[in-house]
C-alpha cells in the first residue's frame, strides 16, 4: 500500500462582524474543537462593531457531534495526518488574513484569539507565517509543544501574549500548566495571565475587560 498526497482547490468559509472601514481593531478569533465559527463569533457581539472588526475562520473538517445526524461541529486537526492538516489550515488562515487585512485602514491593532483547540492552532499559525500580530490571546488553552523554541521566540518577541482561563476549567489540569511553563521557558517569552470565575467558556466580562484594556 502506498500513501500519496494531492493538492486541489478547496473552498472554505469564514464569518465576520463589524465594519472594517471604521474599525480600530481587527480580532481574528479561532474556535475550539467541535464548535462552528458562525456561533463562536456571537461571543464577541458585545464589542462595538464600528470599533472592532471580528473575523472567525472555521476548522476545515466538520462532523456530526453525536452519531450520524444532529448538531455539527468543526475541528482544526486530529492526530491523523496532522502535518497535512496543519499545512492546510495555515494556508487557509493566511488567505483569510490577507483578504481581511486588505479591507482595513492603516494602523489597525490586530489581535489573534484562540479558544481551547484554537490556542494551539493560532500559536502554530503565527509561528509559521508572516502575519502582523500585536496581541495574542490564548483562551482556555496553552501553547502546543511542537513549536521550535529557538525560532519561535523571534516571532513572538514583539507580541503581547495573554493567557486567560477559568479557575473551574474542567479541561485544564495542573499538568497543562506545568507543560505551559516549560514551553514558555523554552521559548523565552512572558505571558500576562488572567483568571476568571468560571469554567471552559469565553467569559463575557473578562472579554470586555481585555478588549478595553482594563484588566
Amino acid at each position, binding site marked *: 500500500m*502506498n500513501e500519496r498526497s494531492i493538492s486541489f482547490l478547496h473552498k472554505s468559509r469564514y464569518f465576520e462582524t463589524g465594519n472594517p472601514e471604521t474599525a480600530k481593531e481587527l480580532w481574528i478569533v479561532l474556535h475550539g474543537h467541535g464548535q462552528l465559527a458562525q456561533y463562536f463569533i456571537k461571543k464577541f457581539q458585545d464589542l462595538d462593531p464600528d470599533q472592532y472588526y471580528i473575523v472567525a475562520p472555521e476548522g476545515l473538517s466538520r462532523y456530526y457531534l453525536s452519531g450520524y445526524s444532529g448538531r455539527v461541529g468543526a475541528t482544526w486537526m486530529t492526530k491523523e495526518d496532522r502535518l497535512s492538516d496543519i499545512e492546510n489550515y495555515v*494556508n487557509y488562515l493566511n488567505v483569510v488574513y*490577507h483578504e481581511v487585512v486588505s479591507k482595513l485602514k492603516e494602523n489597525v491593532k490586530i489581535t489573534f484569539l484562540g479558544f481551547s483547540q484554537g490556542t494551539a492552532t493560532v500559536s502554530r499559525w503565527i509561528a509559521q*507565517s*508572516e502575519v502582523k500580530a500585536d496581541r495574542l490571546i490564548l483562551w482556555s488553552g496553552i501553547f502546543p509543544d511542537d513549536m521550535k523554541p529557538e525560532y519561535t521566540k523571534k516571532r513572538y518577541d514583539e507580541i503581547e501574549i495573554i493567557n486567560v482561563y477559568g479557575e473551574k476549567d474542567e479541561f485544564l489540569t495542573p499538568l497543562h500548566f506545568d507543560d505551559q511553563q516549560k514551553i514558555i521557558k523554552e521559548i523565552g517569552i512572558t505571558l500576562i495571565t488572567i483568571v476568571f470565575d468560571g469554567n471552559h467558556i469565553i467569559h463575557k466580562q473578562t472579554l470586555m475587560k481585555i478588549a478595553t484594556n482594563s484588566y
Partner: protein
Amino acid sequence: MKKLFYLLTLGTALSFVSVNANAQCNADTYTNTCIPKLSSGFNFLKSYKIDGAGGGKSKVEYSYVFTKGTQYMINICAEGETTDGIVVTLYDSKRQKVGTSVYNGQYLSGMNYPCNTTGIYYITYTFENSANYCGGSALGFKR
C-alpha cells in the same frame, strides 16, 4: 532439505529487513541542519521533510501562501555537503514554474524568490540521481 529451505527463507527475510532499515529517512536531522543555514536576514518560517521513500516517490510537495513584496528563500540539506540530487522547484497557483534550484545544469543548495503576487505556491522537491532520496529543507522570508 527442509532446513536449507528455512535458512534460505530466513536469510531472505533478514536481508529484506536490512534493505528497509537502510531506506529509513530521518529527515528531521536534515531539517534541523537547514534552518540555521538560511542566509542572513531571512527569518525562519517552516521546515519541510523530504522523504522520497527510498526512490518510491518521484516528488514530495508542500504548499504555502506567499505574500507580495516579500522575498523567500528555500534551501535544501542532505547527507554531507551536497543536496544529493534533490531539486526544489516553485510553482504558482496556476502551476506555472516560477523558480528552481537548478541553474546552468548545477544543483544549487537552494533558491530565492521575490514574490510579486500573493497566493498559494507549490514547493516541489524532486530527485535527480539521488542516492538516499532523503533530505530536509527550510523556508525563510525577509521584507
